[in-house]
């Protein structure tokens, strides 16, 4: 066990891609936590999807030992957090487990929307903050201007900000010293009853559920009988470890320490992040305040391409949920698609990540239906219903009015692109709430419908601003609006999986955009296919996909059927990845792609 004044706990927070994980690499490397031959870039991003997309999805903790200039060795617990807005929840709960934050700002970019969102969370959590200016190796880096920018926009003192290059390692010793000198040691009472915070939990195929804890008071040992205060569940501690980043067993954890335990817990669902862990026999008197649970905001149907794979999908979802309690699922049936699940996600990236993992880790082919946010239906009889799926929209005569979720969006953008950003927000039914400037960058705050933002707003924003804008949002509440259900008919048959809720005034342009997109997304068939968008019985947009003209092998010679057969078998396998709607095959990727607008 380590004495409190020899412990420092901190998170690394920043806007997406400003170099958090790379900085974590250098801290791990310089302290010799991981052998040089085992080092690789963004070491903590261990999931395939994280490595492929080059982003962090899951917060990761590492314990490192640092012999400081004062001759003492300190234990540092660092938490590398994700930057993407969908995973903001990971950041906020990580912050509850530590006392300080390294605020990384890309010195060639300055403060961005998630810099702001994350630093405010750190301030709210009572953190001491050490600003770090990263990427000073880049020619475009301007550390002095970015210091001023931090003071200006965030309002914290940046005079001691540390200039570094996480890539080259420049400035890393200074960061380590600052962690020891400038961040506070944790507080706690070793002799008080055990009080530990359940920070995170995940499923390990060999160990079962692994629970990450931060001890506030008392001492936890292997073999202890523990109690989770919120759930009331009782367990025996089977194994107690710290993460370096692989698990290393430890006899006990005392106040201020962060580690993981296993306790024969079956499902991640049996644990509640933010819960308080104490001893069964000598419990603490007051629980920690806990966290607000993450709420799924985007819903879509997931169906197996091959209806026979439904049971496999059910298994896969259950297994993934062992690991990620932030997505929800409920069985769903659709006329065209058969049995599947309606699943809820924290955002579109989260949806894509989960779908990719289901397909890859469980070898499934899935159809993802058009994503939707949750609408509130106020029925004439006074009942209020949540509508997760436009296909479930009841007869309008029973509906009094419909409400949709709204968000507060913060966008930071160089003023050259301000006009484009305002137009985009206006087009998406936004209401401007604030507009301020810091240097040549503007900060705009908009009230927007979530439904207009969730699918492709970020992509559009990046493209109209050439990547110079950043964006963050929070859900604020529900508001009534003129919303209607738009259906898509392919070859004269309605395709439920493509229906969406849309604002009356935007219906025609959305309908037009969707049928045009679908015309490109659906492959040509042997016959021509009308594609229509309709509200009620009224068609508001129509396109025709013409029939294929030519697809034949001119010479089939010398009796060599093998190559040809392989080719056609491959095509057939490709077709099997499409689902049949009436006589038309629609590729699985079409359902999300059809919603992305190029406006």
């Amino acid at each position, binding site marked *: 066990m380590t004495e409190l004044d020899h412990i420092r706990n901190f998170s690394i927070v920043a806007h997406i891609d400003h170099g958090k994980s790379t900085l974590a690499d250098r801290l791990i490397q310089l302290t010799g936590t991981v052998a040089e031959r085992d080092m690789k870039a963004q070491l903590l991003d261990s999931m395939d999807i994280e490595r492929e997309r080059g982003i962090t999805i899951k917060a990761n903790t590492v314990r490192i030992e640092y012999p400081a200039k004062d001759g003492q060795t300190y234990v540092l617990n660092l938490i590398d957090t994700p930057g993407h807005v969908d995973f903001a929840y990971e950041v906020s709960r990580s912050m509850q487990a530590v006392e300080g934050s390294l605020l990384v700002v890309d010195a060639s970019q300055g403060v961005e929307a998630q810099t702001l969102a994350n630093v405010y969370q750190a301030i709210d959590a009572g953190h001491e903050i050490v600003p770090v200016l990263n990427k000073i190796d880049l020619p475009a880096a301007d550390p002095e201007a970015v210091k001023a920018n931090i003071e200006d926009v965030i309002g914290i003192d940046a005079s001691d900000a540390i200039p570094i290059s996480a890539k080259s390692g420049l400035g890393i010793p200074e960061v380590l010293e600052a962690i020891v000198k400038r961040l506070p040691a944790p507080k706690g009472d070793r002799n008080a009853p055990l009080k530990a915070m359940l920070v995170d939990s995940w499923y390990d195929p060999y160990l079962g559920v692994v629970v990450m804890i931060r001890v506030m008071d008392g001492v936890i040992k292997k073999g202890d009988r523990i109690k989770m205060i919120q759930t009331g569940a009782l367990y025996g501690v089977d194994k107690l470890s710290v993460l370096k980043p692989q698990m290393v067993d430890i006899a006990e954890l005392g106040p201020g320490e962060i580690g993981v335990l296993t306790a024969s817990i079956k499902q991640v669902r049996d644990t509640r992040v933010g819960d308080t862990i104490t001893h069964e026999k000598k419990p603490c008197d007051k629980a920690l305040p806990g966290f607000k649970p993450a709420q799924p905001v985007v819903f879509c149907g997931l169906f197996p391409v091959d209806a026979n794979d439904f049971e496999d999908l059910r298994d896969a979802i259950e297994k993934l949920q062992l690991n990620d309690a932030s997505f929800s699922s409920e069985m769903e049936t659709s006329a065209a698609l058969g049995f599947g699940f309606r699943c809820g996600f924290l955002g579109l990236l989260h949806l894509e990540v989960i779908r990719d993992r289901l397909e890859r880790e469980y070898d499934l082919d899935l159809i993802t239906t058009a994503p939707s946010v949750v609408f509130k239906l106020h029925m004439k009889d006074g009942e209020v219903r949540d509508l997760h799926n436009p296909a479930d929209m009841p007869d309008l005569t029973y509906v009094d009015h419909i409400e949709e979720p709204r968000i507060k969006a913060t966008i930071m953008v160089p003023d050259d692109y301000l006009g484009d950003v305002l137009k985009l927000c206006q087009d998406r039914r936004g209401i401007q709430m604030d507009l301020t400037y810091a240097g040549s960058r503007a900060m705009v705050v908009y009230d927007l419908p979530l439904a207009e933002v969730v699918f492709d707003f970020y992509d559009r924003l990046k493209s109209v601003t050439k990547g110079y804008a950043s964006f963050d949002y929070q859900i604020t509440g529900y508001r009534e609006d003129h919303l209607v259900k738009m259906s898509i008919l392919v070859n004269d048959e309605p395709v439920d999986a493509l229906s969406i809720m849309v604002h009356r005034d935007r219906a025609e342009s959305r309908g037009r955009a969707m049928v045009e997109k679908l015309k490109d997304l659906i492959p040509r068939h042997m016959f021509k296919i009308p594609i229509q968008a309709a509200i009620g019985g009224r068609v508001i947009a129509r396109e025709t996909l013409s029939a*294929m003209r030519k697809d034949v092998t001119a010479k089939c010679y*010398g009796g060599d059927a*093998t190559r040809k057969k392989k080719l*056609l078998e491959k095509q057939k396998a490709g077709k099997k990845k499409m689902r049949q709607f009436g006589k038309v095959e629609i590729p699985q990727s079409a359902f999300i792609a059809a919603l992305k607008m190029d406006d």
Partner: protein
Amino acid sequence: MDDWRHGGFGLYLHWPFCAAKCPYCDFNSHVAAEIDQSRWNRAYLSEIERLGAETKGRVLNSIFFGGGTPSLMAPELVQAILDKVRATWTLANDVEITLEANPTSIESGRFRAYSEAGVNRISMGMQALNDADLKRLGRMHSAAEGRAAFDIARKHFDRVSFDLIYARQDQSLNAWKAELHEALAMAVDHFSLYQLTIEDGTAFGLRHAAGKLHGLPDDALASDMYLITQDICSSHGLPAYEISNHARPGAESRHNLVYWRYGDYLGIGPGAHGRLTLDGTRHATDTPRAPEAWLRAVEAAGNGELPREALPLSEQATEYLLFSLRLSEGMDLARYEALSGQPVDRAKLRHLEEIGMITLEQGRICPTDAGRAVLNALIVELMP
């Protein structure tokens, strides 16, 4: 009855050499400085002997010398091979013995000798009827030489067919129609009209990938060219009996029919494929593609074949499907279902009939002209 009997029994012999490699061609053909024809002679005879022992008592319906350019074979070699064939199998009364020829003067000089050896049908690679296009196709002969070679062939053979490649670079619909009418005037009772296919790994393939092959027709024009070809040839009494093959009824190439009716065929020579049913099991046979590798295999092991594969019934069904639908006579549904072991979805057939892709007559699925233009899609649709 073994399934192959519906299609008959043929022998394919591959001659893998050409005087020059054409830029569009991905056949197993090579240019060699020197060819030891007596070494080839021994190898072919040894393979005939080996396969003959396995197929005792069968009657051959067709023999085909393909290439490459078989008209570069010494007439003595052709003679020796056919003598050996006659000593090995019984030949059908109407046996068809075809040799592929390139229409240059060196080759037409041998036609008489080939005829004496027993060849009774010539298939000539004319490719185009104007010099400019022949040049672009990298051919070594002029249009006039082509016609001259064709006339010589006709003197020695009753059955002479020729090949044209169309949908060429910068070819308009009208230019093709005019050329097709010229071809019809020349044709005896059979010709093959292939749309130019850009094959990976050929000179055209590389240029195409680099975006440097210009003037190729788009799918719409290619489709129009195909459909107009069907109309014109039909009205001149030479309807397509297969995607790219036209004949006066009765004058179809028997050898082609063996493949497309999914009979048994032996493949001898480098890269030659075969289908062979023995004791009720149909096998796919294959040989090394490189000429030297094939020769060595025959010389060293007395067997030029790669290890044989038994074809499961489901694969035979697929092969029958993709061969037979190339024919205008179409596919026998009962025969297909017997192979595949499962019925074809009738609702699907009805739909394909409704949209004009097939006709259903007397238990046969026949692709229409429109259906043949998108045959790959049609086959994939019908695959289980």
